């Protein structure tokens, strides 16, 4: 038995690297990321281009074909993901590891009804009758707190609001009962008022099902209030890992900079400090 299987973790990542070949040379989007995940909520925070999304996609196996993924360990529940044949890797997707994308306006197929898209996930991974699949899809829509599941089932994505679309997305990704959910900026495209509703639904479902969650976001405050642990990424590297409750004690200057950028109620700081980047953070 290998090390990853013995650790009992849901996910073990050691020295993950994702490299894109370009005309001007190789670009390393992810440069040696390591972390482990149990059945907990882990937040990955970083700015655009910090490699947080590519880390999520590498775990899913959705890295673009021209890119190269390397890792000392990339193991899900003891399975070496990089050694897995593509067919088995695909069978994991949607069934055991699922992913929620940013904007339901683009991540749902515009010409297929919401119900059919949910059923499609289920019937890809389980042999169920059409009637049973429909029943379970309706239950799932109810579970993401859609009030009138039967109506929404037959609607097309453009006919529902962003919040409703993202709930449908969650339903679509949860219906096959995954153990690990990667949520890539799941609320960034939503109105602030809807964000918290959707997060609450996600949080409840993840807790109920005892799933692991990787929550990718650029919003440090959101992540710290929502997750158990936070990984801070900068330029393709993990610069700091800490418990969400201990965020105020962050030591890395980048994390500190991010925290200081946020206005606090009652504090009068004009202008807000601007992050002063240091070249050595990227080393």
């Amino acid at each position: 038995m290998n090390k990853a299987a013995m650790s009992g973790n849901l996910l073990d990542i050691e020295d993950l690297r994702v490299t894109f070949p370009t005309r001007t040379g190789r670009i390393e989007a992810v440069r040696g990321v390591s972390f482990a995940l149990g059945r907990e909520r882990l937040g990955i925070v970083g700015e655009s281009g910090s490699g947080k999304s590519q880390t999520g996609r590498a775990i899913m196996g959705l890295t673009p074909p021209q890119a190269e993924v390397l890792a000392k360990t990339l193991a899900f529940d003891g399975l070496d993901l990089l050694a897995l044949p593509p067919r088995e890797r695909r069978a994991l997707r949607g069934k055991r590891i699922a992913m929620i994308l940013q904007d339901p306006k683009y991540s749902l197929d515009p010409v297929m009804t919401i119900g059919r898209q949910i059923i499609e996930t289920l019937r890809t991974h389980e042999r169920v009758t059409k009637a049973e699949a429909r029943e379970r899809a309706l239950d799932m829509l109810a579970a993401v707190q859609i009030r009138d599941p039967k109506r929404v089932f037959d609607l097309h994505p453009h006919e529902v609001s962003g919040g409703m679309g993202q709930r449908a997305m969650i339903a679509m990704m949860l219906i096959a009962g995954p153990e690990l959910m990667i949520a890539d900026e799941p609320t960034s495209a939503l109105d602030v008022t809807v964000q918290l509703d959707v997060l609450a639904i996600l949080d409840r479902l993840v807790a109920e099902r005892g799933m692991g969650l990787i929550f990718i976001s650029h919003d440090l405050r959101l992540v710290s209030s929502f997750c158990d642990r936070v990984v801070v990424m900068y330029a393709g590297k993990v610069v700091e890992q800490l418990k969400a409750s201990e965020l105020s004690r962050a030591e890395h200057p980048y994390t500190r900079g991010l925290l200081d950028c946020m206005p606090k109620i009652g504090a009068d700081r004009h202008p807000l400090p601007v992050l002063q980047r240091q070249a050595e953070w990227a080393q």
Partner: protein
Amino acid sequence: MSAVEQQAGARGSGRALAIAGGIGRFLLIAATTYLGLLAVTFFIGRVIPIDPVLAVLGDRAPESVVERTRREMGLDLPLIEQFWIYIKAALNGDFGTSVLTTNPVMADIRRVFPATIELATVGTLIGTVLGIPLGVLAAVKRGSLADQFVRVVGLVGYSVPIFWLALLALVLFYAKLQWVAFPGRIDIVYQYTFTPVTGFYLLDSALQGQWDVFWDVFRHIVLPGALLGYFSLAYISRMTRSFMLNELSQEYVVAARAKGLSETRIIWGHALRNAAVPMVTVIALSYAGLLEGSVLTETVFSWPGIGLYITDSLQNADMNAVLGGTIVIGSVFIAINLFSDLLYKLLDPRTKVR
């Protein structure tokens, strides 16, 4: 009646109203476009320096006969009145008599147009059935050898003149190999034993069970059909490739992969289903283009279609036939466009009438 039923009933009648409104607008657009078409053809007929009286009588008729004929043809009336008469006649399918064939133009068109439709349909079928899979293949395997191949096939189809390729094909398949039949639609042997019903010879001969005729018709249509098919394939595969590349880069494709769907399912069930929406317009336009634009093909293959008919009429200053043919082609063009719009609405739920 419960509240739910009432609501459902109200929604039902609302939808019926919306559909009726949609059809009404649809017909209005068709009528307006058709009126425009009539106006253009009418004024072309009046502006060109061909005197219809001269075309009928020749240049040696006495002045009095010319004057009388001019009156009989209604050419002395005010222009607006002439236009009115023209519209009424056109709506009744009366485009006058062809000078060249001495038949009513409409009867001529009824004879020649099915030949063009049959050829264009064969061409479009070939172009669609082969062009879409090739375009999909090129998009999915972007940058591969298969992609290069499809692109070269498309480029050649785009840039080579059809009459040149047609002549080469005739030299090879008719003169050298003798695989195909030529000229026209059917051998002279069958011309008198075979009575077409719809005018589509492939269909007629198959329905009548005359398989020897069917084979002969097939041997006649296969080469011009394949050539038109190739040109339509070039266009359709190119457009399919570009639409598919666009769809495959969309986020819903990533989501579909995250669901664990197979690539086959993603390509044919999601991406192509989305690309089909603009493809409908492309195929419809290519079909309409073949209907009006296969003049060169018809000339090379002596195909007795509407392109050849109009060309012959034009060379003989037979304006009734030219304008009648133009109006019929224009009407079909309008119909195909409206039909593709309708199909577009059916395929894309975002354009549904609410």
